[in-house]
Each structure stands twice: as structure tokens, then as C-alpha cells.
């Protein structure tokens, strides 16, 4: 790590001129995906390593910090394939730029090279490297200052698999398809694991009548499990293998026996039978009661009519009144 004063001290008067020349030279070659062109050129050592990986894509990422930021600034970057990386941090401060200490770290391990520049009140620092294997993935941070640290972190991760959180429910003897899909990424390979206690065990694909793995596209995989039994329940993991690492997804499988909903169904059926029996019994009871009282009424009405018939037509009015009295 070179402290800023060492770089800036004796060459101070010449630096602005040098900067301008560098700017003019570097402008065209630094136009990849970065809105504010950073005033750097690539040093010769780096260029050699870059030439080896020149067929890889270049990704640039930028973090801005001020001296008043309370929280560390983080940027999550999803990386699927090996590529060249350029990380740029810029630090704005009102104080003296020369006194600011700049370091680059990977997971708290201090990194070697370090390129700085200052224009006005903004301090730029850049770190370029290539990621080709999973060991190079992780968190890279630029740290400004010693006492009061301002840190900007770039987190490199492989693409994550987003899946359903709800468990899959199936019945004994049924077959189920477990699906894993990656949104915008294309893994090299997929593998499936099932759980045996707390250990992940690979799924035995040799058993063709039990497990079938296939996938329509490169970005999804399906595991079909047939003839489900109670032992098949538990957690399943699908691993997506990339050049730069692995990501996994967890799927929960629940296997029920038919008795579970059957019990609920039988409970409802029993309730229905009970209610129907009660209602029909009530109906028969009220009908019998009505019939008894009606038979009595009918008998009296018939008797009354017989009596009234023999009287004749003149007793029209009294007949009506008598009937009403008897009927009620």
C-alpha cells in the first residue's frame, strides 16, 4: 500500500498536466458501460494477464462514498461465467485528499496493487482482476481512511435459484415432479440430493422406475419421483453447477396417506347423516301430532255436518257459527 503523500508530494506541480494527457489518451478505451469515464490507463503488467483472458467479457462496477456515509455501501454482483472485472471506488471529501489512506481488500485479506487518482475533491481508486474459479468469488472492498473507515464492498455471487417456499403435498402411490428453474442463467449441470437425516445424499438415478431426471431447457431441471411412499417425504435439494460455484434450492416434499382427508370427509358425512335423521324424525313427529289432532277435528266436523244436514236450509246462519265454534 502506498500512502497518498508519497505519490503526490514531489510530483505535485506536474501532476495536473500529466492527468490531462492521460485523460486525452485514455478516453476512447474506457467507454464500456460506465457513464462517468474514469481517468485511468491500464498498467503494463496487468495488460499481459488481460491478454490471456481477452476472450472473456469485461465488467465494470462503481461505488461512490462520502466521508459522511454512516453505513458501509455494498453492491451485489451476480456472475455466471469467468470474466474480467474492473472495480472503481470514488471518495468525496471536503478535507485533504492526500491524507486519506486507501486499501483494497478481499475478505479482510489485503490486496497488492492499487491505483489512485484525485481530481478536485474526488479520489478515484481502481482494482482490476479476472475471476476464473470459485475461489476468486467473494467480497472485494475498497477502504478509505484509517481511523474513520469508509468501506465500499462488491459481493460476487453465482446466480441464485428462486423457488416456491410452499411444501409439495402428495399422496402415497402418486407421482410428483420436483422442478428447479434458473431465471436468466444457464448452469453447466444440475444434481439432485435428498436428505438422510441432516446429510445430503445424492439421488440414486439408477433406479429408473423410481426416479427420472430430465429438463426441457438448459435453465431448468425436473426430478420425477414415482410410486411415492411415506419414506420419500422430507427435503430435496437441487444444485445448479456453474464454473464459478454452485447454488442450491430446497424443496420440501410431504407425503400423506389417504386417511388424512378421509377422516375429515367421514366426519362431515357423519354430521350430515345425523342432521338428516334428526330433521326427518322431527318431521314425522310433527306430522303424527298433526294427524292425531286433525283426526279429532275431522271427526267432530263430520258429526256436526251430519247434524246440520238434517236441519235444512233455513238454519244457514246458525250452522256457520256452530262450525266455527267447533272447528276452533
Amino acid at each position, binding site marked *: 500500500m502506498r500512502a497518498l503523500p508519497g505519490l503526490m508530494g514531489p510530483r505535485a506541480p506536474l501532476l495536473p498536466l500529466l492527468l490531462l494527457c492521460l485523460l486525452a489518451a485514455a478516453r476512447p478505451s474506457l467507454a464500456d458501460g460506465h457513464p462517468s469515464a474514469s481517468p485511468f490507463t491500464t498498467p503494463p503488467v496487468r495488460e499481459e494477464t488481460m491478454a490471456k483472458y481477452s476472450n472473456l467479457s469485461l465488467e465494470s462496477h462503481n461505488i461512490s462514498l462520502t466521508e459522511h456515509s454512516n453505513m458501509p455501501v455494498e453492491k451485489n454482483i451476480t456472475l455466471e461465467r469467468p470474466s474480467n472485472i474492473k472495480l472503481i471506488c470514488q471518495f468525496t471529501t471536503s478535507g485533504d485528499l492526500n491524507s486519506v489512506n486507501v486499501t483494497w481488500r478481499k475478505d479482510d485479506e489485503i490486496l497488492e496493487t492499487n491505483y489512485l487518482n484525485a481530481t478536485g475533491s474526488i479520489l478515484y481508486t481502481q482494482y482490476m482482476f479476472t475471476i476464473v474459479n470459485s475461489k476468486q468469488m467473494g467480497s472485494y472492498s475498497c477502504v478509505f481512511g484509517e481511523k474513520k473507515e469508509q468501506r465500499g464492498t462488491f459481493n460476487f455471487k453465482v446466480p441464485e435459484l428462486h423457488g416456491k417456499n410452499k411444501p409439495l*403435498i402428495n*399422496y402415497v402411490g402418486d407421482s410428483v415432479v420436483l422442478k428447479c428453474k434458473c431465471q436468466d442463467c444457464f448452469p453447466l449441470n444440475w444434481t439432485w440430493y435428498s436428505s438422510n437425516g441432516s446429510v445430503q445424499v445424492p439421488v440414486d438415478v439408477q433406479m429408473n422406475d423410481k426416479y427420472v431426471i430430465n429438463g426441457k431447457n438448459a435453465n431448468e431441471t425436473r426430478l420425477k419421483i414415482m410410486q411415492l411412499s411415506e419414506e420419500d417425504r422430507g427435503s430435496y435439494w437441487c444444485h445448479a453447477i456453474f464454473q464459478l460455484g454452485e447454488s442450491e434450492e430446497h424443496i420440501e416434499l410431504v407425503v400423506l396417506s389417504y386417511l388424512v*382427508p378421509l377422516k375429515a370427509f367421514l366426519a362431515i358425512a357423519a354430521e*350430515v347423516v345425523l342432521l338428516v335423521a334428526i*330433521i326427518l324424525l322431527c318431521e314425522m313427529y310433527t306430522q303424527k301430532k298433526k294427524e292425531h289432532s286433525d283426526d279429532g277435528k275431522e271427526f267432530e266436523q263430520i258429526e256436526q255436518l251430519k247434524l246440520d244436514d238434517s236441519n235444512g236450509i233455513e238454519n244457514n246462519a246458525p250452522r256457520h257459527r256452530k262450525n266455527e265454534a267447533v272447528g276452533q
Partner: protein
Amino acid sequence: MAKVNRAQSTSPPDGGWGWMIVAGCFLVTICTRAVTRCISIFFVEFQTYFSQDYAQTAWIHSIVDCVTMLCAPLGSVVSNHLSCQVGIMLGGLLASTGLILGSFATSLKHLYLTLGVLTGLGFALCYSPAIAMVGKYFSRRKALAYGISMSGSGIGIFILAPVVQLLIEQFSWRGALLILGGFVLNLCVCGALMRPITLKEDRTTPEQKHVCRTQTQDFKRGSSYSTLTKEWVQTCLCGSLQQEYSFLLMSDFVVLGISVLFMAYGCSPLFVHLVPYALSVGVSHQQAAFLMSILGVIDIVGNITFGWLTDRRCLKDYQYVCYLFAVGLDGLCYLCLPMLQRFPLLVPFSCTFGYFDGAYVTLIPVVTAEIVGTTSLSSALGVVYFLHAVPYLVSPPIAGWLVDTTGSYTAAFLLCGFSMIFSSVLLGFARLVKKMKKNQLRFLAKESDPKLQLWTNGSVAYSVARELDQKDGESVAIAVPGYSST
């Protein structure tokens, strides 16, 4: 026989056991209409399990709806010939069997047969007899009773939708269908509640049978020997059916039937196309879902309040007018819909449309009962719901086709609006014509016989009308006293 009739025939109780019938009908509406709508919640599960697309799975819902409505006359025939209780219990068992067999399905075709046809048939056996039963038990508070019964549809969807979702999460779709089959078994409880009641009007049935027999004897004398036996057999067999469906020849009922066709054509697309229309004018997904919820809730409110309202003494005689007013207003709402392009404007639309949608649904059985009387109400309702089937099936796809070809919803909504307005105008026109005819013959009666003026309490005007009707060739087999009071 006459003894029993005299003892048991009553006037509609307007309460007492009638409220149990209303509760039973409410449950029937929940178990049939709400369960039909909730079947669409299973579609996502069916799509993933059977690897089919949405169009294939959506057929299940169409089949259930279609079979329920198309077989509604079958339901009323069964309940007329066996008994309402047996009919509804049979329907409940059938629907429940359909759902239970559906839970064991291994392909989508199995679901079409079990969940679609069998369950739809079971629902058809329950729906119209239950509604007819309510009409028998109520006369003064008929509209309120119907309002409460029909609100089961809206309330049922409200309650069942989250419950079905929960069942699917707990037991997956197979278990959920099994438990839903158990729930639908409650239709048997509703069936048990439907105690038969013989009304005063039903006493005329033995007389009608006698009339038919004398008619067949006339036939015998009139025609030759060979065709005579054939006709006699035909009239014997078709005698009872003829009796039951004699209301089909009534001009009032024919007009009602035609207007129901147009009304059913108009009302169904809104529930399918409101959300896409709202999304197309820039309303967000949540707001569009909110519009549908408002529609559902206000539908329930409209059911009950409009029923209560039209039972008030001031509106009691104008239930028919209230019905066509509700249908006409819904049509007007449709016509205004293409002009409503923002969410604050669509909310009052939802409220108005939902309210009057609930309103006229409550009044359909009331108006039908007014026209045909309570004896034939079951069969008449069967026919009315049968007439709903084809428009329900045909209208949303036609509206969708119009939207696709014209590129906007205006044409589709205007068509539906005019269809509903035509339906209500037709009814209003028919009623006007009928009133004019009545005034005419009352005038004629007064003119022809001055003595008869003393008797014009309606009964003699009725007998003169009967002669006029016979000249016009209308059927007079039904001598329902309630008919002249409209």
C-alpha cells in the same frame, strides 16, 4: 282423500317453518353456485398436475355451469314426480359422488366427466326445486325470503374461496376435492328440510285431471278408430306433462322467456371482462381485484335489501316493474361503462351494477311466480334457468371475440347494454299491452250487459276474458285463482 286435503291445505305461512326453508335454500345456493365458482381455484393445480394449458382446464367450469342450467327442467320434473325432499337429496348425493370421484382422477377427461357432468347434474336436481319451495312458503314476504336465499351465492363465494385455498394448501387438490365432496353432501340436509306443503291452489289438481279426461273422451268421438287409440295413449302419457308445462303456452311466460334470454346474454360478460377492461384503462391489479370484491359484496346487499324493499306495501303490487327497472338500469350502466376510464369512476359503477344485479336475481323467481302461480313454479323455474344456460355459455366468448376484432371493449359492452335494455323494454311493453287489453274488455263487459255491472269485482270480467282467450286460442286448462289478481 278430500278429507286429508281439507285438513292439510293452508295458505303460505310467511314464517314459522318457512324460515327453515329459507335457510335450506340459502345453503343450497352456497353449495351449488358458490362451489361452481370456487372450482376455478383448482385450475392452477390441475394445470401443473396434468400439464395442460388454461383453456383446457377452464372447460371444467363451463361444463358444470352449462349442465346445471341445462338440466334445471329435469330437476323440477324429478321433484314434482317424486318429492322435493327426495329430489334434492338425490341431487346432493350425485354432486357429492361427482366430487369424490374427481379426487381420484388420473386425467383431465376424467375430471370433465366427474367434476363436470356428474356434479353439474347433481346441482341441477337441487337448484330450481329449492327455489320453488321458498315461493310456496311465502307470499307476503316472498321477495325478502328470496333475497336472503339468493344472497347465499355471494356470501358463499366470500367464505369458500379462502377456505378452498387453505384446503388445497393442506391436502393438495385431491384431498381438497374429497373434503369439498363432503361439504356438498350437506345438500342432503337441505333436502330433508324441504317439508312438503299443500296449498289451497293445489286442490284444483284433481279437477284438472278430470278436465283432461273429458277432453280425451271428446277426442275419441271425433277421430277414426285406428288413430284414436294412439291419440288416447299419447294424451294419457303426456297428460301429466301437458299439465305441468301448460304454462309454456301462456303468452306472458313466452315474453318472460325471451326477455330472460336477452338478460342472461347481457349480464354474464361483465364478471369475466371487468378486470381486463379495468387493467386496459390503466387501473392497477389490486384496484381491479377491489372492483370485483365491491361487485360481490354489493351484490349480496342488493339481494337482501331489494327483496325487503319490494315487499313493502307500496311496492308489493309493482314487483314486476321493479324487476324490469333493475334490469334496465343495469343495461344503462353497461352503456356508460366505456366512458368510465379511471378508478374513481369505476367504483360507483361497480356499486350500482352490483346492487341491481343482486336486485333482479332476487326478483326472477318472484316475477315467475306471479305469472305461473305457485303450483307450476318449480317447472317454470326449471325452464327459466334452462334459458339462462345457452346465453351464459355463448356470451363471454362473443364479447371476447368482439374485443379482439374491434380492439376495444366499447362494442362488447354496448351490445350487452342494449341486450339488457331490450329485455326490460320487452317486458314493459308486454305489460302495457296486457293492461290495455284488460281495460278494453272491462269496457266491453260494461257495454254488453248492464246487469253485469253489479258483478264487476273482477270475476265476471275474468269469465268474459276467458271467452275472448278461447277465441284467441290460448290454453285455459289452468284455472288458478291467483292469476287474475295480477
